[in-house]
């Protein structure tokens, strides 16, 4: 199994193909509905958020503030990615993302964006909030918390061996497109 360590080079990403299981080690930034809309509308990222060569995670974690002021991540599974389809390709291109983690897959526009800019879509296991929270070794920071609320804020997470599957690669292949077509054909035989 390949290990991806952030920041990630374009060559590393181009070597990945649909169906590859990977482990991710390094920094992830969470970003979901509010963040994508904000960036799409020209919103500025705080200077601490360094997406270039990095990975954006579609996730709204459960965070508990500790007595010493630090945060503890107690649940951190992926949210459904397709809602970001209108924005994702632009965000990949504008900020130099090499990976997007989420669940459920994304559409043709994002697939084209991955091909053009050298990015992959990494499918985490939906609902596996505890297994994935165990991979978070430290919460390094939080941004836009006041504006967007906890689930929608940008959380900077240090992760070790975070498991995911490449379901959309940078060569125009999508497992989601394949499974949809195959299941459609199977259903047609049974109606």
């Amino acid at each position, binding site marked *: 199994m390949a290990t991806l360590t952030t920041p990630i080079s374009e060559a590393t990403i181009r070597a990945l193909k649909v169906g590859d299981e990977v482990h991710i080690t390094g920094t992830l930034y969470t970003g979901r509905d509010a963040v994508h809309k904000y960036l799409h509308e020209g919103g500025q990222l705080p200077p601490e958020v360094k997406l270039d060569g990095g990975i954006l995670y579609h996730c*709204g974690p459960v965070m508990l503030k500790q007595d010493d002021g630090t945060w503890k991540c107690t649940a951190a599974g992926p949210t459904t990615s397709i809602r970001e389809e209108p924005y994702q390709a632009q965000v990949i291109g504008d900020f130099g993302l090499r990976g997007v983690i989420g669940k459920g897959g994304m559409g043709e526009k994002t697939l084209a964006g991955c091909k053009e800019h050298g990015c992959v879509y990494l499918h985490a296991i*939906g*609902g596996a*909030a505890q297994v994935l929270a165990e991979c978070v070794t430290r919460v390094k920071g939080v941004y836009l918390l006041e504006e967007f*609320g906890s689930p929608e804020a940008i959380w900077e997470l240090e992760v070790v061996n975070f498991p995911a599957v490449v379901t959309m690669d940078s060569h125009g292949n999508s497992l989601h497109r*394949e499974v949809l077509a195959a299941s459609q054909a199977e259903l047609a035989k049974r109606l």
Partner: protein
Amino acid sequence: MSALLESLIELIRRTSAELPDDVNAALVRSLEQEKKGTIAESALKIIERNIELAKRKSQPLCQDTGSVIFYVECPLGLDQITFEETAREAVKQATKRGYLRQNSVDSVTGKNDGTNTGPGAPVVHFHQHRSAETHVRLILKGGGCENVGAQYSLPAEKLHANRDLDGCRKVILDAVLQAQGKGCGPGILGVCIGGDRATGYEFSKQQFLRKLGDRNPDATLDALEQDILKTANELGIGPMGFGGKTTLLGVKICAANRVPASFFVSVSYMCWAYRRQGLTLNSDSSIAGWLY
């Protein structure tokens, strides 16, 4: 703290952190059936590990703690106002303890006040019965699977679905196809044939209170449930939509009368993280026993 408040907080904790036995058993069976070395098998192994970890650490199975829906069966004379106020307080307390994510957003202002309470949150359904016992059931319905629910109005021309059982079958299977892996499969379908737009969805969700292994007492609906389950699992959508043998773990269907002008089929989808639990209360509101 009142005994009722304590019992309801414990109901929320257990619902959020522990998968019911019937669902766990179905997932174990599906893991045995998946082809070894596939990403479908990997996904189910991670799911199994997640179930064990959440239970051991008493933390949410899934970070999307979802919509909080109580179903209360109560004797005549139960003070529903106090019960509902206590349920709201239990949700607030459970959120503070991290059993629930701060998950409730004001739809107009976009603000999340972090309490998980507000208009329609939580939802409490009361149903009186002629027994002295009070049963409280709770479903935490995640947003990802809620988003792939669908309501069809028959006839549905594009799907060649007419106003008959075969038409119902076609639209229910279409809902499975459209959902693919987006609802965190392997999933469970709750379906209502008939009703109006509101009751159709409401009754479809109530089907999630049934145990996975039960059989529908209506022979026609039972046959339809078995047929949809078998057919859906032949489509190859698989866990998380990765391809594979298990697309659904169960199908539960009910019917409600409709008016001649309308024929709705309402499909609710529940993710594998099927958080449903229930308890019976003693007369002092302490917990007498668990329902699942």
